[in-house]
């Protein structure tokens, strides 16, 4: 195809260079610095002195009940919450792809949640979920004629995490929806129509044609959502402060407390690296799927 593999490599490198330089320049120092800190004690509230402590920070993390509780809460949000976003998002995308000229209106309307900054939506939901003053339980009661009383959404350890999850689903399902829709748009109509004509029916065409083509895009969407859900902070900070009790303390919130409230930099670095490792493991699993779906390569 090309005059030589040298040219090919040079072109490939030139294409990737800007991204490479930017990412390397900005992320390498923080990464190395944090790696060093993970094996050090640095308590900035008392002194700027740093000392090497080996694996102490990691040992502490493994015994830290709050750390594991926060990990557990986060994994619930990641696994259950993102799964809901995936199903709802792809479902809505399929529906929208069937709609004709009014689609712009629907699309714009359904994308609104994603455009509202979490610092804004957090304050809205704090009122919406309020049992005493909020509209949600008021409407539940009014519409049901007084028979159903809504739970104290954020004030009960049994519902608070689910409520945070519901809010996250509200905010980010549109993200999955638009990704899936964009993926669906790149499927040639002829393919699905041919399949349907062949007698595969709507669902047959859906599973055989649409899903395989959608899969790479969906996997990337999922990967991004998993990574970002691991960082769930704003909603927790604004809606519950991690409570009641420890029921909504997420790992990002706990990391924030250690980093920006306690300025316990060694421990913060250690738990940051544990998170990184967990996310890498999850990402690797996703990418096994992604790899199987890879498209053609220019030879």
């Amino acid at each position, binding site marked *: 195809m090309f005059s030589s593999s040298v040219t090919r490599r040079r072109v490939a490198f030139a294409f990737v260079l800007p991204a490479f330089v930017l990412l390397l320049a900005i992320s390498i120092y923080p990464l190395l610095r944090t790696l060093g800190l993970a094996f050090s*004690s640095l*308590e*900035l*509230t*008392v*002194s*700027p002195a740093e000392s090497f402590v080996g694996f102490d920070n990691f040992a502490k993390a493994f015994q830290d009940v*709050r750390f594991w509780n926060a990990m557990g809460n986060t994994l619930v949000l990641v696994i259950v919450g993102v799964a809901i976003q995936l199903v709802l998002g792809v479902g809505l995308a399929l529906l929208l792809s069937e709609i004709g000229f009014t689609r712009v209106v629907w699309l714009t309307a359904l994308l609104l949640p994603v455009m509202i900054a979490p610092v804004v939506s957090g304050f809205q939901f704090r009122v919406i*979920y*309020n*049992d*005493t*003053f909020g509209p949600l339980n008021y409407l539940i009661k009014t519409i049901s004629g007084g028979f159903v009383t809504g739970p*104290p*959404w*954020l*004030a*009960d*350890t049994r519902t608070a995490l689910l409520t945070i999850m519901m809010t996250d689903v509200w905010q980010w399902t549109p993200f999955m929806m638009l990704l899936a829709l964009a993926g669906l748009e790149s499927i040639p109509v002829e393919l699905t129509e041919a399949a349907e004509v062949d007698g595969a029916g709507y669902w047959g065409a859906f599973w055989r044609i649409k899903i395989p083509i959608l899969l790479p895009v969906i996997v990337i969407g999922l990967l991004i959502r998993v990574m970002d859900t691991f960082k769930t902070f704003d909603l927790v*900070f604004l*809606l*519950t*402060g*991690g*409570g*009641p*009790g*420890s*029921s909504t*303390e997420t790992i990002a919130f706990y990391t924030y*407390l250690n980093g*920006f*409230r*306690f*300025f*316990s930099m060694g421990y913060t670095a250690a738990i940051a690296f544990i998170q990184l490792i967990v996310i890498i493991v999850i990402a690797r699993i996703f990418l096994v799927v992604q790899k199987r779906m890879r498209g053609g390569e220019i030879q």
Partner: protein
Amino acid sequence: MLKKVFFLAVALALLALPALAQDAPPRLNVVDYDLCGDFGGVTVTVVGDAGHNLAPYHFWADDFAAMGITIEIIEVPFADVYQVLKTEFVAGSGAFDVVTFYPSYIGDFAGNGYLLPLDDLMAREPASVWDPNMDDVLAPFRELYNKWGGQTYALTIDGDVLVMMYRADLFSNEDEKAAFMEQYGRELRPPETWSEWLEVAEFFTRDAGETLAGEVLTQPFYGTAEFGRRGFSYAWYLNRAASNGVMLFDEQMNPGINSPEAVAALQNMIDTLKFAPPDVLNFGYDELRDAFIGGQLAMVVQWTDVPKKAADPSISRIAGKVGVGRVPGFEVGGEVAHRSMMPVGRVVGVAADSDVPEAAYCVAKHIAYNTSLENVSTSLTGLDPYRMLHLTHPEAFAPLMGQENAEAYLAGLQVALADGYPDLFIPGAAQYQDALDIQVNRALAGEVSAQEALDAVAAAWNEITDRLGRDTQVAFWQQALESYRALGLVK
């Protein structure tokens, strides 16, 4: 298309609006003061929590101009002040001259050398220019929130303390009094002790359809509510614990937080929740305030700005029906000891690496000096009184709430401040507070028992002390104890 045109029009309309001149309260001219000399056009950068608490820098703009000082203000969201200040300090960026912060962090900021000791500047002659009149500042603020290691590093600009508020109309209602007498065999009165608090809370908790003071309730009414949300639930707990004689640590910094007295105090708070709205565990300052001034609670413990709001009929359904009293206490040795926590509050300091320390000091002093009577007596700020001078000038507050209310308010404040109990202010304070807060909150949420929760606090506190360096932390704590003793908070 129409939509776009509309948005564009709105955007343009907003752009076209002239900038608003900053409001300032009318000058009271109660206080005489002299200004520092002319600094000849220096710029002083002030950092503080965004919003109305920075308004005094506008009130006194003419005086700063007269001193040849240009003020540049950096506004930081309230919840993020500490992390922003600390990051800039750690990086040694030198971005600030005057720093506004919460006194809990004085040990951190002064101990790490971020702040300039002010004693030399305060002692300069002539005193009419340099002396901030510290003797007039109420003792808890002066001794606990301004000093570190025997030196003054900060000047108070906002006094915060908790008080009890109650529905005076309900407590004086004859039907209710009779019913209470019948049920509990004693007179109905605003609770003096935390066990009375429980009884009164139970008494006033009613379902919709029941009667309260002769009126049929259309919605449930509750005896009380607490700050149940993570963040400050520990302060509502410490009101109880401190009055029950609990010392956070002993001399050697062994936690005293899981003593039987401490557990009893927490159990009292847990029991109170039965007489609170169902979502009390997500009540922060706003919910707690509005549930009370919306007429749904019989009594509540709150910051001292809430009585001002409860007296305002445009936002309050209970204007004119509110009594202010001492936060209840526990009976210890036949006497009721009252303790009111003093969470938050604001102080200003001068950054150690400021290029213009003298000008910065003059700015800080001018905001904190006797002149502050005008800052704390207006609705244009959220600052609360902290000087004797403030407490003895009700006429300054009269335009806001009327002479009579002002006198009652300041009297209540004085009583509450006399019971004042400080937030922790040694380095690492935020960690100790958080460790306490989460466990108190877990106990309130029923995740663990009171004893388990406080045992966990003790363990967490020991871990924090060890991690930060036990020897130095003990020394800091003993130094803090000195101040506690000076104020008579401990024997």
